[in-house]
């Protein structure tokens, strides 16, 4: 193995040319991206708003006005941009007279194949959830997607008890998904037979969100009562 190795003559590489080319190409690409972002951003924001409003409207068909708020330790403020860390976004629906009718908020939990996100409607007078809309899910067609269509499952959410403890720190009873056919209490959700994981994701999503939102929101609810006409 002591034979002489052939000497490789590497042609000199012009690094300056490489750097120059890469810089020009990246500058060109950066410019393109910024330009298209500027043009498409308003349309994207409008699209997102329309999709959410459509879900809120499906939940609360009589709403005359829907206003976005963020609830945090510091109180309830009108939403600007993405919610800050620790804040919970919710939507207040006002009727024609500008009176607060209902609250809608989104919760999510991991289902069978991806996060299941549901929008739920809440009313103060019954301290209950009166309906849900699935806003995002990739569950198995024909099985997990029954959470959207199954009438018996949806009946769970016509009057789901989410009343708070007297000190308003947490839910009196956590919302819980139970095995199909074993629902006993108002805060329990009767799972769909064969789609227990997806049903549980719905219950967990609602519970997690309500546990955070309602203790922050209820003490401030009075201030929101007439907000619909004021703005």
């Amino acid at each position: 193995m002591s034979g002489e190795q052939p000497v490789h003559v590497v042609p000199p590489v012009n690094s300056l040319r490489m750097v120059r080319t890469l810089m020009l190409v990246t500058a060109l690409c950066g410019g393109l991206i910024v330009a298209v972002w500027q043009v498409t951003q308003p349309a994207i924001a409008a699209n997102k708003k329309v999709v959410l409003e459509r879900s809120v409207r499906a939940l609360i068909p009589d709403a005359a006005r829907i206003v976005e708020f963020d609830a945090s330790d510091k109180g309830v403020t009108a939403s600007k941009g993405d919610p800050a860390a620790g804040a919970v976004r919710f939507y207040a629906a006002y009727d024609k007279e500008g009176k607060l009718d209902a609250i809608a908020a989104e919760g999510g939990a991991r289902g069978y194949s991806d996060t299941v996100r549901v929008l739920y409607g809440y009313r103060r007078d019954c301290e209950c959830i009166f309906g849900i809309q699935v806003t995002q899910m990739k569950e198995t067609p024909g099985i997990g997607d029954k959470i959207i269509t199954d009438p018996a499952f949806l009946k769970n959410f016509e009057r789901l008890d989410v009343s708070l403890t007297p000190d308003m720190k947490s839910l009196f009873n956590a919302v819980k998904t139970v095995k199909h056919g074993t629902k006993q209490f108002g805060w329990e959700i009767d799972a769909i037979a064969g789609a227990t994981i997806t049903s549980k994701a719905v219950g967990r999503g609602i519970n997690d969100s309500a546990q955070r939102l309602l203790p922050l929101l209820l003490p401030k609810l009075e201030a929101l009562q007439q907000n619909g006409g004021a703005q």
Partner: protein
Amino acid sequence: MSSQALQASNMEQLLEGIWKQNPVFVMALGMCPALAVTVSAFNALGMGLATTFVLICSCTLISMLRRFIPKEVRIATYIVIIATFVTLVDYIIQAVSLALYEALGAFIQLIVVNCIILGRVESHAAKNPPLSALVNALGMGIGFTIGLFALGSVREILGAGKLFGLSLFGDHFQPWVVMVLPPGGFFVLGLWLLFFAWLAKRKEARHGA
């Protein structure tokens, strides 16, 4: 080359991608999006058009820049350019239809690593003038879109009894759900490949006779 000959060769280029070298059915490239997003005809069409857009823009631009790009940094340059157009298509789809954007999910961003695009750039656009690169990319894009559409429409018809969301068979149809699940993608792709292989066999037999 006379203009007629040029046109003829362009036609040839275009047909190559659509039929003779169809990326899905002949070269079996880009299988990841081809299997994953083709649960409906609409998704398949959206993915096909998005890929075509990226293919045409990157191939044309790279072909225009081909003399300025040193070969040592060509892959880096290509990827930057391809990624740029993928980002653009990402924004455009969000602006046009959020429903389509949700349905395609991460596969829009993953167009960057679709081997059809880098393959076209490296084997064709980097060596040919812009017009030829554009025509070749257009052909491949159409071929890919047809391939995805062939998968997506069959899967939607069998798996959901619908085409473009319109119910075809009425309420009594029991959807063949497995067809819109991942295994269905393999079944339908396999059947299409079988069909194309049969076509090729038959052509061969005819020529032999």
